[in-house]
């Protein structure tokens, strides 16, 4: 199992990478001694090579993954992730133009939705995520988007700053993500009502708001995308941040692929989250800023939570009455 990562790579990259080396050993009538040598060099017989130079993969004469990496990065990653991000943005824009944001008439009474610590951790995670997104996007797409009008000198400064910032802020993301996970996982465990909510597409089908608890089905999906995607970017990020953890360059390439795909998925999903948290559902942002949401908002979007809250308040007040 020395090459376990090849399998991981194959599974992950199967759709992105066409088989390249289908050609078998030379079928020429006369064997070319040079061809034999180069077969050897390419490692097809897996004969270990040696060198006196110390360095990462110094003994490897020909890096077989090099061309795949180039193909993945230039032909696929940049193109498809660009499509994905632009697609999500335009879908959201289209939705907003056709449908508009959800708004409920305010009752004026506020209930506490998020504690101070929860809000702080949310914005810590959001802030770090934003910094990583900006720096990451500069590294991934800057050459095609920023460089043409900024010129190489200016872009080099931006990119260098992005690289350092990205490497430094990465570990903060892990800390924030773990903290966030601990705080919110309890309320994000899937429940039956969430499936119903999802079938109704959160109220887009069938009219009216389907019932939801503290978090609805959509929010829970986002939470788990964030958790799993976050785990993927974090582990691959740790490998990239601490290259000494792995040997050779292939694990680094693999990590880079995982990192890029997971990050793009996260960014695309976060666009949806940001839209729904601000323009999409009015009053949500306030809940994460001050911690307070309007009772009408709570009733409209999270009726089960709202009812539970009322039950608790009633139980408390009756207990207080009994106590006196």
């Amino acid at each position, binding site marked *: 199992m020395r090459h376990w990562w090849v399998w991981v790579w194959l599974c992950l990259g199967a759709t992105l990478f066409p088989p390249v080396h289908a050609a078998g050993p030379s*079928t020429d009538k006369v064997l070319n001694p040079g061809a034999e040598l180069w077969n050897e060099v390419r490692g097809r017989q897996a004969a270990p090579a040696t060198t006196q130079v110390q360095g990462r993969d110094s003994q490897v004469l020909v890096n077989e993954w090099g061309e795949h990496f180039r193909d993945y990065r230039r032909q696929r990653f940049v193109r498809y992730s660009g499509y994905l991000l632009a697609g999500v943005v335009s879908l959201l824009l289209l939705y907003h133009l056709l449908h508009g944001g959800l708004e409920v008439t305010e009752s004026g009474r506020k209930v506490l939705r998020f504690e101070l610590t929860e809000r702080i951790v949310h914005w810590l995670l959001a802030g770090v995520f934003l910094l990583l997104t900006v720096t990451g996007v500069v590294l*991934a797409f800057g050459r095609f988007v920023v460089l043409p009008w900024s010129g190489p000198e200016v872009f080099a400064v931006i990119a260098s700053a992005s690289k350092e910032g990205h490497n430094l802020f990465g570990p903060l993301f892990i800390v924030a993500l773990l903290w966030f996970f601990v705080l919110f996982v309890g309320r994000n465990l899937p429940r039956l009502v969430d499936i119903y909510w999802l079938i109704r597409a959160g109220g887009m089908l069938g009219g009216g708001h389907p019932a939801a608890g503290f978090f609805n089905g959509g929010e829970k999906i986002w939470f788990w995308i964030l958790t799993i995607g976050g785990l993927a970017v974090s582990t691959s990020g740790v490998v990239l*941040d601490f290259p000494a953890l792995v040997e050779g360059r292939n694990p680094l390439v693999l990590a880079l692929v995982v990192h890029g795909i997971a990050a793009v998925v996260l960014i695309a999903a976060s666009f949806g989250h940001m839209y729904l948290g601000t323009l999409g559902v009015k009053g949500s942002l306030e809940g994460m800023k001050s911690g307070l949401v309007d009772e009408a908002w709570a009733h409209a979007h999270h009726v089960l939570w709202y009812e539970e809250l009322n039950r608790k308040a009633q139980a408390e007040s009756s207990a207080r009455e009994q106590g006196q």
Partner: protein
Amino acid sequence: MARMKFYCDAERCIECNGCVTACKNENEVPWGVNRRRVVTIKDGERGERSLSVACMHCSDAPCAAVCPVDCFYTTKEGVVLHDKDICIGCGYCFYACPFGAPQFPEDGAFASRGKMDKCTFCAGGPEETGSADEFRKYGRNRLAEGKLPLCAEMCATKALLAGDANVIADIYRQRVVNRAASSLAHGVELQRQKFRATPERERTRTRGSEG
């Protein structure tokens, strides 16, 4: 204009590492960096061969394709060079290069690698030709002085060839022809034995396919 290439003749390379030393000395490359290295396959076995590798100055260079800051450029002599003032040390070129040519002075935590360094075909860099800055960052600009890379010039067996691709191709073609003649004289079987200790099954299949 001439298109510059290296060619290393594995039949001649004797793994003396003279090219490596010459390169380091001539260009005063930083500690931990070797722009050129000699790799030996089947060390100590039958069919042992050595090759001296550095940047091959690809016509369609993968390093340039993946670089996020586009710091590579190809000179009119076909030499692939990069600008260290623009390089951010991300390591992508190293992932993409078929030959492992790009080198980094560090391999530290938080991916601090320093600026990438690689063989310049002794052609310096984007700085003013012959300037101290150019030498500090990229090494000697021998090409501007009308000289070829020192590694090739120093090669005792003339295994490592550098220069105009056409000339080198001619030299190599001449060598192949000469060797073919000599192998015909001594028999192909012998020659094959030397290259490769083929397993019995493999040998049969290959022979079969030969007809």
